[in-house]
């Protein structure tokens, strides 16, 4: 799975994108978040569910309940500020 980070989140995590191996079994965005937060430190803090971190799956807005597979592209980012 390809995981991307943008904006403030990319800076907090010091990472723009990475390849992530998901454990077998049914998965959702929430399982990806759990896996990343288990790294501790900045990961645990920045991806805290209390924070306003948005998610897109295959470049469409999703939620923590959106199903994901190993071939998906998942992106995490703060609320958008363009225009």
């Amino acid at each position, binding site marked *: 799975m390809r995981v991307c980070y943008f*904006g*403030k989140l990319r*800076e907090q995590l010091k990472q723009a994108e990475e390849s992530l191996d998901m454990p077998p079994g049914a998965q959702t965005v929430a399982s990806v978040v759990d896996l990343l937060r288990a790294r501790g430190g900045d990961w645990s803090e920045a991806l805290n569910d209390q924070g306003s971190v948005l998610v897109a799956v295959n470049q469409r807005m999703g939620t923590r309940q959106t199903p994901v597979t190993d071939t998906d592209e998942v*992106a995490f980012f703060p*609320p958008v*500020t*363009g*225009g």
Partner: protein
Amino acid sequence: MAGRVQQADFDAGRELQAFRAAGTRAGAIVSFIGLVRDQLGDDDAIQALTLEHYPGMTERVLANIEHQARQRWGLDDVLIVHRVGRLQPGDQIVLVMVSAAHRGEAFAACEFLMDYLKTKAPFWKKEDTDRGSRWIEARDSDDQAAGRWE
């Protein structure tokens, strides 16, 4: 139909000419240009504004919000140009141009496109001030502006 993301500046006059050259059905063209301001509410002088985006998703969202605008109003043409990269105060950030038979549709669609652009398209702004750099936070007023179309 067009949505573009680019580092280069745009020439609104040239884009307007292209709009007019495309046909004579439209009775109205409305355009909006967003600029980098040189100051924040709390009086910090802005030295530069850096915009990043999510390549791929951005183009998809621009096409989607144009599609939504076209479903709401009878529009002849739509153009969205959004810049990314490092910009200076006074620089142009975004151009939205809409043509329609009458001005009412063109004004409404232009405002709708800007409201949705600000709240749905994956762009992020970071500003450099005398006191360092920081990411701009999303504003409730922008969400409220977008919410009135729902």
